[in-house]
């Protein structure tokens, strides 16, 4: 069997500027932040990012890596508006494809099922149709004759997700209450990279409740062990959101934040900088 373990650097070495990149999680929850931080240390840019947006979007937008964003929102949950996303958007730093949450989900389903689109009862009558003039409608071929929006598949070159546990083959397990859409992201992408809190050894899922095994190895290209890798977003039950640090992120000028926390050579230097900050403010 193939051992798919990699480092965060190995993952971003496989990404190219101009790619379409899906990022799992939701808002400020279980985001693959260690992989996003590795991306920030790389020269990869000009990305089309597909995300239920949180600080992943804020970080990449602030660093000027996004050419186009496909998202129904960007939020930090306990801080409703993502400040760096807002600033970049108000500065016209990227193109926005604004779609509804359910349209987004059906776009993932379409991509995962190799369909060009799926019909949804959403979008009609709203200005989503005005600001996304490329959207088409489709009429039911049955007697109801209803008109729907044909949401195009959200196919990706690569997807990044973070789960609680994974094995070396790419099977991955979530232990929190919500799977979000991470399995769909992996299936909607040509290659998918899973970071996890802890690698389990072969056979380590023998006693797992089967429905917690969310992501299957057939849809995974690489696995990264990244303890605390969703920081500062939540990754329950391993840890909750680091609210003080998130507040720091949201209120610190971007350059200052980036210099202090993101300029080190690797993920370990980020984690050390965070620890030092916590000790300082304690």
């Amino acid at each position, binding site marked *: 069997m193939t051992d798919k373990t990699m480092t965060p650097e190995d993952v971003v070495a496989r990404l190219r500027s101009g790619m379409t990149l899906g990022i799992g999680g939701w808002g400020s929850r279980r985001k693959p932040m260690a992989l996003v931080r590795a991306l920030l240390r790389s020269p990869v840019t000009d990305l089309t990012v597909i995300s239920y947006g949180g600080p992943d979007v804020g970080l990449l937008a602030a660093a000027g890596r996004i050419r186009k964003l496909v998202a129904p929102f960007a939020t930090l949950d306990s801080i409703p508006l993502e400040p760096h996303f807002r600033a970049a958007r108000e500065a016209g730093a990227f193109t926005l494809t604004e779609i509804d949450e*359910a349209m987004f989900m059906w776009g993932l389903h379409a991509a995962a099922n190799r369909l060009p689109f799926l019909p949804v009862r959403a979008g009609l009558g709203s200005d989503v149709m005005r600001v996304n003039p490329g959207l088409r409608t489709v009429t039911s071929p049955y007697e109801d004759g209803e008109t729907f929006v044909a949401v195009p598949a959200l196919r990706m070159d690569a997807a990044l997700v973070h789960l609680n546990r994974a094995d070396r083959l790419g099977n991955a397990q979530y232990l929190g209450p919500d799977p979000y859409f991470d399995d769909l992201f992996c299936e909607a992408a040509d290659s998918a990279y899973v970071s996890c809190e802890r690698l389990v050894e072969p056979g380590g899922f023998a006693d797992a409740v089967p429905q917690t095994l969310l992501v299957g190895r057939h849809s995974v290209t690489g696995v990264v062990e990244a303890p605390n890798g969703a920081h500062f977003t939540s990754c329950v039950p391993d840890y909750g959101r680091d609210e003080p640090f998130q507040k720091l992120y949201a209120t610190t000028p971007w350059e200052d934040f980036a210099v202090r926390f993101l300029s080190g050579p690797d993920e370990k230097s980020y984690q050390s900088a965070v620890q030092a900050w916590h000790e300082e403010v304690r």
Partner: protein
Amino acid sequence: MTGPAVSRAEYCVIACAEAWRGDGEVLASPMGLIPSLGARLARRTFAPDLLLTDGEATLVGADGAAEGWLPYRRHLTMVTGGRRHVMMGASQLDRYGNQNISCIGDWAAPTRQLLGVRGAPVNTLNNPVSYWVPRHSPRVFVPEVDMVCGVGYDRAAAAGARYHCLPRVVTDLAVLDFATPDRTMRLASLHPGVTVAQVRAATGFEPAVPDEVPFTRDPSAEELRLIREVLDPEGRREAEVRG
């Protein structure tokens, strides 16, 4: 009634709770503190069949005990299946109930970027959508919203929407609905202490005003007890709505 007089915030809780009256076995999705208190009050009193969540992925009973699983993707099925009544916020609302939470100004170059459209387009085409506005002002109640996220009655009719329904808009001043022949906003009740003139001055368009405008109903003694002693003993509601 004994004890302190009913506060404006408590009338708002009652007005929000009333949004779910008669809904039956549907998910109440309150966004914000006052709607959340309203939904939980309704669940504990006159709407015992309502489904509630813990704010994450668990459906909970009145005592907070788990009774089901509702992660995001199943939540979206409740929306499109119509088994949900959400009370959303609104940065802007027009007379037909078109709602904006995406951005202020021209969408192509917004002066203020807000949340994004979130689920407002799918919500308004599929399940009942009420709104909660904690500061009733001409900034929120505008002649025309900058970006239609939630679909109002005029656009829903033009789109042939089959399941569109906006039951009510609750603000810190009043309850409004769309019970007019052309489905434009109407003043349905005033919270005690508020005048029609105050609502008119705080609304950026002319709402329909019936000859007789009732007051928002009083809470019962038991409802007041639940609000004050069980649902919000710290009095957080008074910070959201003053007066």
